[in-house]
């Protein structure tokens, strides 16, 4: 392996001239002329436009250029001597510039033809990674709620019956507990069947106002099919404060829906039942989509989330004063949203992680 030596920069010539003795402008004019000769020689031997450009920078460059440097040195001369030296400096500068442009023209006239290239060859490319479509939905939801002053909270995926059911006003001997067939690790210890236990844990730790969303995994005793997986992403929202009403609840979620699905989106709230909210609602959206020919059409109503005003029993379970504070909450499935968003027929595709499937979302 041969040793390679790199160039060090040449020392700056004008620095010494600034401190020379005798009639100051004489010495300056001498060095200008020496520089001129040196520059003209460099221009003559330059073999291509690149070299020529380096010569230009070396002598006429605004900052480092050696002739430019001398010109800046004019300020140190006695005022009487400046006009003579200035005129000479300008002459040298013009002379070098002229030589440069002439040489550039002659190089252009005589430069060899570069080899032909084929620009229809495929462009260079790199691997593109993709954010998982379900993560992307969560990101987009988060972006909207962040804009409305929410923060993110999280909690354990293994939890106990109190957090998953009891504190959420779902007695274990109530049929509502059947709605979510739960996976257990031990008696009383379970895989959370929704992200709602995060509501409880967050309220236990912080005082109102609470304004959070909680994305995370939830688990149910489901077999894999086109719309179910035993573990799935869920995103929870919770607002608790004084003076929070059903009107705020509707307004905020409708605003979210219009930001997520587009300004023309219609939002419908239907009465429903969840043990931890009252009044409870299912939220549906109807989107306006555009066909290829530019005309628009409305979709069917699509169920997107369960929501409602936080049941006062839930607030009492975490020690909040339910006479003073009210709140609302929602839960939605980003997997289902991603399914609808991308026209995916089978939820399982999201968990098979086929590179060809994922690459579509780049």
């Amino acid at each position, binding site marked *: 392996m041969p040793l390679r030596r790199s160039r060090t920069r040449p020392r700056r010539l004008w620095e010494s001239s600034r401190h020379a003795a005798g009639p100051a402008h004489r010495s300056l004019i001498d060095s200008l002329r020496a520089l001129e000769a040196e520059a003209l020689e460099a221009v003559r031997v330059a073999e291509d436009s690149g070299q020529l450009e380096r010569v230009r920078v070396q002598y006429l460059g605004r900052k480092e250029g050696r002739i430019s440097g001398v010109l800046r040195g004019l300020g140190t001369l006695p005022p009487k001597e400046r006009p003579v030296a200035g005129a000479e400096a300008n002459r040298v500068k013009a002379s070098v510039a002229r030589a440069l442009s002439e040489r550039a023209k002659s190089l252009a006239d005589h430069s060899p033809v570069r080899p032909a290239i084929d620009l229809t060859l495929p462009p260079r490319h790199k691997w593109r990674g993709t954010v998982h479509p379900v993560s992307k939905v969560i990101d987009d939801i988060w972006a909207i709620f962040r804009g409305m002053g929410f923060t993110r*909270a999280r909690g354990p995926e293994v939890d106990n019956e109190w957090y998953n059911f009891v504190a959420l006003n779902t007695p274990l001997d109530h049929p509502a507990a059947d709605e979510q067939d739960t996976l257990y690790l031990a008696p009383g210890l379970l895989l959370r069947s929704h992200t709602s236990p995060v509501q409880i844990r967050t309220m236990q730790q912080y005082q109102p106002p609470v304004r959070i969303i909680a994305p995370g995994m939830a688990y149910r005793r489901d077999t894999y099919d086109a719309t179910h997986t035993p573990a799935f992403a869920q995103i929870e929202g919770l607002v608790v404060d004084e003076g929070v009403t*059903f009107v705020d609840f509707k307004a905020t979620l409708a605003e979210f829906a219009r930001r997520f699905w587009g300004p023309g989106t219609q939002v419908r709230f239907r009465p429903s039942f969840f043990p931890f909210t009252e009044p409870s609602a299912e939220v549906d959206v109807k989107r306006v989509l555009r066909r290829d020919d530019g005309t628009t059409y409305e979709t069917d109503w699509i169920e997107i989330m369960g929501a409602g005003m936080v049941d006062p029993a839930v607030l009492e379970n975490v020690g909040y004063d339910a006479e003073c504070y009210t709140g609302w909450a929602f839960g939605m499935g980003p997997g289902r949203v991603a399914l609808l968003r991308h026209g995916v027929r089978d939820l399982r595709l999201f968990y098979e992680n086929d590179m060809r499937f994922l690459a579509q979302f780049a």
Partner: protein
Amino acid sequence: MRGAPVEEAVSLSVGLEDIVVGRVEAARLHPGADRLTLCTVSAGGGEVSVVCGAPDVKVGACYPFAPAGAVLPGGFKIGRRKIRGEYSEGMLCSEKELELGTDHAGIMLLEGDFEPGAAFARVMGLDDVRFDVEVTPNRGDLLSHAGIARELHPRGHAAIVAPPFPGGQQGTMDAAFVRGAREAAAGGVRIAIEEPEICSRYLGAVIRGVRVRRSPDWLANRLRAAGARPVNNVVDATNYVMLELGHPLHAFDLAKLADLQVSVGCARPGESIVTLDGETRALAPDMLAIRDAEGPVAVAGVMGGANSEVSAATTDLLLECALFEPRQVRAARRSLGMSTDASYRFERGVDPEAMESALLRAAFLITEVAGGSLDGPVIDVCPVAWKAPVVALRPSRVRQVLGVDFGPDEIAGLLAPLGYEAAGEGRFRVPGYRSYDTLREIDLVEEVARTHGYDAFPEDLGPCRLGTVPDHPLFSLEDALRATLVSDGISEAQTPPLCPEANGDVPVLNPMSAQESRLRRDLLSGLLAHVERNMARGVADVRLFELGTAFAPAPPSAADPVPAETARVAVVLAGRRSPLHWSVPDEPFAVYDAARVLKLIAREAYPNARVVPVEAESEAAGQPANHPGAAAAGLVPDRRYELIDEDGAVVGAGGEVRPERTDLPPWAGVVVGAEVVLPAEPAPRAEVLSKELPEQPASTRDIAMLVPSTTPAGAVLASMRSAGGALLEEARIFDVYEGADLPDGMRSVAFRLRFRARDRTLTEAEIERALRRVTRKVRQDTGVEPRG
């Protein structure tokens, strides 16, 4: 609809257009096959020959018949076929073939006399539409036709009347009642309640002189249309009234009740019962049973016993209409592992105020369709008289929760159609059918909102206060990792954390299958399965990462046996480092990419961590499964790194995946994997403090060293760095050459050194001195010499 959405409107006859009634006129064994029957079927247009595979074709009986050319509900077209030498001109159908049920065991016998060739859907009462309504668990009052009607009608309950039955003028009967607190008797039957807490009321009507047979067509057809299976006229009458009014009823064969007495109490130890479905069920002492003098004859609220079942021989009945405690019914049916129409309704609460009317309507219907008459007054045992709940509702609370003002009159006006009667001072009397769900003020607030209509509330986005909950820093770390890895060309994967036994140490108590019986111990195993699946589909270039949770069992000593959860990131890389391209040579991923990925992750998660090659057999293999270093155990021993944080703890590992861990096609090359445990509470990343750029020029020198393969190049580099002092700004390896022209066991490693002083331009002599110092130190430390 207000309270419950219609899930589906099913036209019951869809797909059955071509099916007709076929009567088997004759049947004989197929001459060419033991298991086949050759039938002569009349189906309107004369008799046809049909080959049938069912073992028990009855001559003279009617079956659904699909003639040649008919299309079955599933889209299958019936053709004229030759089966073992005999032509078959159609098919006698099973329930499953008609998509009416799951019974595939035999062809569907039609009970009764039918006109051959008649449209099957019409004679079965299937020329109807069924609305499937999704009823939430709080709305047991909607589990009947009357309940739905009440919900739909603007005047609510007040508008509901039970109509007369077809062919009659009447819908119910009058009867006297004989009442008792703990027991009462009439018609020769004595009824007693032993557990008033669990059964607060029991009505019994004795009906004598019935004839049990098939129900009239209208009754059977209506039951079928509602999804119930007709049994006989008595049972059908009780089921009909249950579907109509929501109250489960049960008829006992009076002749089979020992000593004509019935008591409602807990099962005795060791008792068991054969229920109507033929199962023998052991009863626990906390289960409520209906018993005669000898033992249990029904599991209260769940299912009757076979020993008292109404049969063709039955002439006298005891008709039961009782009120059982929902939780008790739920507990009993859960421990018996069953659910019935009756238990489903009892669990969700039946209307205590409608018991008498349900009993009388059922009794009337029985006498209409099965004959007979009431014997004596209705027995009414009622230890705990039902009292309607009264709930107070403050208009201020309505305003506080709903954000809209409602006056007291307005509130009363909204609640009245739902059956809530104003009881003065802002209080409301709750009707029986809502008494399970409406117990608190907030429940009435919901009723106000529901009746007013959710759509009628404005959507004014008012001001709000910011919350006190900080954004959890682990989310930001995950966001940063996702962005870093995606921009590196790696795609995000997601894997459900449930896995087979091989990949997890935390068992699930009630898994759906062995494939989902554990919680994963790491993320890498799941990603490797994705590599396998991709390669099995011919996809050779796989770059995946995942952010998620891994689980480890709690240490046996822990007081709280909660598994430990760790947030992690894992990466797999297989195939080409960059897409196939005409200008770039193919280069596969190699172990060095694991180091790079670990550094990418570390930059976000552990800014001060180091990536260190692992000595052949590290202690990680012996570490607990949740230890971050354990991931290294799945990697090829001399081809792996660990990520060591600033405290010296192993937080991750990466390298070449052991080939035996994956089942890959022969063309698959090296698979690189890495996994890092993320900090539970990541510290915010330190702000970058920018350094001033150097003003002085640098000088670079390339130097080639002859490094034995046993000497780590990293050691030579480290030695250079230590010797270079302040002047050596950077030292890096830019080429490694192993060729035949080199001495055995030697490599030529090329280093590029960059020298710079911050305050001056270095002279040639200074640089030469520094170089000599470097080579001397390398020789001293490692014995390595510059190449010739």
